[in-house]
């Protein structure tokens, strides 16, 4: 009965009102989409993800240079023996050496000399 009442009510509305409602619905949906997209882009920038995103077009030529490492994980459960500590030290040393091998953010590349500003 309620269902038929609702149907009768909508049928009683003028066609122009139904079109107006549809236009408002479309505009409202577009507006909400734009707001959500703006928030998503803002979060992408603010969170630092933009700096890590090598899928950006400017990284086309160098994307392959980034080495994706799949490292062994040390188990958090188990006993502690000299053997396990030694195994851990081997993993730790290997990881530390990878970091030391990367020349990280020295001042030379931005110097006046490097940029030929002297």
């Amino acid at each position: 009965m309620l269902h038929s009442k609702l149907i009768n009510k909508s049928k009683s509305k003028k066609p122009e009102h139904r079109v107006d409602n549809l236009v408002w619905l479309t505009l409202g949906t577009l507006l909400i989409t734009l707001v959500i997209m703006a928030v998503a882009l803002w979060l992408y920038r603010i969170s630092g993800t933009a700096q890590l995103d090598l899928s950006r077009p400017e990284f086309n030529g160098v994307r392959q240079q980034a080495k994706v490492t799949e490292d062994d994980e040390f188990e958090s459960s188990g006993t502690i023996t000299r053997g396990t500590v030694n195994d851990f030290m081997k993993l730790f040393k290997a990881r530390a050496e990878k970091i030391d091998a990367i020349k990280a953010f020295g001042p030379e590349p931005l110097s006046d000399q490097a940029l030929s500003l002297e």
Partner: protein
Amino acid sequence: MKKWLSFLAISSVALLVVACPVWAAETPANQKQLDMVAYRCSSVKANIKRLQTQDAITRVELGQNYESILTKLMVPMNTRLAKNSFDGGNILSITADFSSNLDNFRQHYQQYDETISDLLNIDCTKKPADFYNKLLTARAKRSDVQTDCANLSQNIKSYREELQLVTFQVN
């Protein structure tokens, strides 16, 4: 009348505040360098762009390794030590320092990258002073990132040394 006078006074002060940074930017620290910036604008920008790309690769690789050391090695070892009732000494505080320095690294790199992007958006033929000032800022931000990397390396070294002490407790 009084209202007009106060409005004029406030406007003058506001104008000075807005204009001063412009004056400061246009005052060259070294005219020769500014001339070089304007003359070599496109090659300087190309070098900086190349550097930005390379830095992104470095950032990803370093970030992966730091994250891996923290989550796959330090934290599991700390958990295991605790479960086996070992006295980890300063291991927990070193791990906390490492985590804090890693957050600083992420934050400082983001600021550095944004500064480089701003730098690349400046027209150095028309605004060499602005470009050079921004370059100085970029150098400072890069130095912050380097400091974070040095601190993280120190944390790694300290963690290893502290763990060596723990092995004396092991049978």
